[in-house]
């Protein structure tokens, strides 16, 4: 799985990466993925899976997916 941390969300990654490759076998909810990556949910405004915008709370992703998290400043607006 490839995960993009848009805007200041990359600041929450210990290595400040904006793209992260994750080996994830079992499907995982976006909320659990965000927790696993240490992302504060309040800072996530928009999520796209395979380039389609989805809701944060009811979507599962797995190995082949491309997931992009965007914060309020870089997603919902300037």
């Amino acid at each position, binding site marked *: 799985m490839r995960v*993009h941390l*848009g*805007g*200041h*969300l*990359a*600041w*929450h990654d210990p290595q*400040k990466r*904006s*793209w992260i490759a994750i080996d994830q076998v079992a499907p995982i909810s976006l909320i659990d993925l965000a927790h696993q990556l240490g992302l*504060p*949910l*309040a*800072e996530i*405004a*928009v*999520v*796209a899976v395979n*380039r*389609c*915008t989805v809701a944060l709370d009811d979507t599962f992703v797995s190995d082949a997916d491309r997931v*992009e998290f*965007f*914060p*309020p*400043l*870089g*997603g*919902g*607006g*300037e």
Partner: protein
Amino acid sequence: MHHGFTGKILRVDLTARRLWTEEVAETLYRLYPGGKALAAYLLLRDLPAGVDPLGPGNVLILANGLLTGAPFSTATRFTAAARSPLTGGFGESEAGGFWGPELKMAGFEAIAVTGRAEKPAYLWVKDGQAEIRDATRLWKRDPEDVQAVIREELGDRLVRVLQIGLGGENLVRFAGLTNELRHFNGRTGMGAVMGSKQLKAIAVRGSSKYLEQAYEPKAIVEFGRRLVRLVKEHPASWDLQDRGTPGLIAGLNAAGILPTRNFHTGEFEGVDGLRWETYEKELLSGRRSCFACAVRCKREVKVDDRYQVTDSYGGPEYETIAGFGSNCGIADLQAVAKANELCGRYTLDTISTSATVAFAMECFEHGLISPEDTGGLELRFGNAEVMVKMVDMIARREQIGDLLADGTRRAAEVIGGDAAYFAMHVKGQELPMHDPRGKVGVGLGYAINEAGADHLTAFHDSMVANPESLSYRSALPLGVKKALPARELSRDKAELYGLLENWCSFEKVIGLCYFGPAPRSFIPVEEVVGVVAAASGWDVTVDELLRIGERATNLARVFDVREGFSRKDDTLPERLFQPLETGPLAGVGISRDDFEAAMTALYEFKGWDPVTAAPTRARLEALGVGWAAEMIEAA
């Protein structure tokens, strides 16, 4: 003894070749502590209504804020203001860089220029002295050359030069100013005003220090040290330094509000060509900063590939990438960088220039502009080569470029037919690259702003949409009471916008960058209050700072009312009331009824008459500017 400001305005009459100094009392300055407030006060006092914006009677004000030049991050901004040749109303644009701080060190808070030079001239200001010098040999030359020649002539490579390029000389109505080649007062056509006066440049040099005039210099130094740490520790400033505004492209596209093909939709199929990763790979050559700022949000670019782009004029910001990119249907970031370089060279506002090109593309696609009009150019969405060529034609006023150089509103009037529907402007100023259908508070700002559509009148809806978010929590000291969804258009949203507008206006007055204070970024509200007190010695509160911002906006509104603007001008382009056809927000438009109700609520929050959209006498008196009510009553 006053603190934090020089107390002096340099007055210049180019027709009479006369220069003199005006003293500013502290009591007056506390009401109008610089920037937008001081400029609006001076324009209302000195400029009669109805003056030709491009005639000698217009007054060009360049005004620092109280904090401009203080030795800490983001205290770099100054305001350029005059009657706008683009809107006919209050013209205003802020810039950072180095010129404002240098002007403060040279002993002046502001410069006010009227008249018209008999032949091209430039102004030389140094340590309280000023003179008008010949610029005949500088006319028609690029800013890079002009800056080098002036520095050589004055024998000082640290002279800071504010100037216009070819666009300003040719009176392109959306021409701006540049300082240090990379910092722009882009909006509302202040470069055309300077060009109409045959004033090519203003060179400044000063030897005083901000701390010498501050009330508590040690507190200012300590504040600056804290900010250096905060810049590294705060996610927003970290992101500004790492990617800056170009990093916004992908997120706005995912949200369905990346303006695409003249705001026809909000999702661009070529977005990967414009993303930060492409920018970093194909353009990026370095990073730069403004005076004393640790954020370093400015990017340098250099290209020698499909296009040749010099690194002299700075890299494209988000607005420029979306403007020349998705909004023109173009996925080639190198072409965008070339258009950005040309706008820097000609000192054209990248927002209005790109929006005007997108407008012309849509007119061409609908047969309203023909190949005969364009000299055979296929002015279609996606044609990068022609897009770059159009920037050149606008600056030179060649063929269709001559018409487009007057902006979308005037061009649409000449073209006729459906062109007015394609002209995306408010009060004549083109829309920035944020679609209000996805963040409606931004739309209220576009509609009500005295200078026309502007994305920096307040903080965008998404910053105060989640009560747990960092930006929302940092806005609480301003009196924000409730988080609201980005697309909620209501009385609560109108009042939230009004509150945040006051804070944002205060920033424009005091000389702070939009990327400094909370809620956008890293400087807590209470720290801003503290540093204003440390600079001035005034016992200020958050409420007084909000009133400063509100007072400035009210004076700008009085200026517009005096010029005949009314509620009918506080609106949005018709297209925004129509639903987006594709993307994540397909089917979403702005409800006209909800919009009008929210505007009424906003007028009421501001203490303005909802019928005329003019400030009431009671509100102006409460703000200490009752004298301005007479101007409204006489209008």
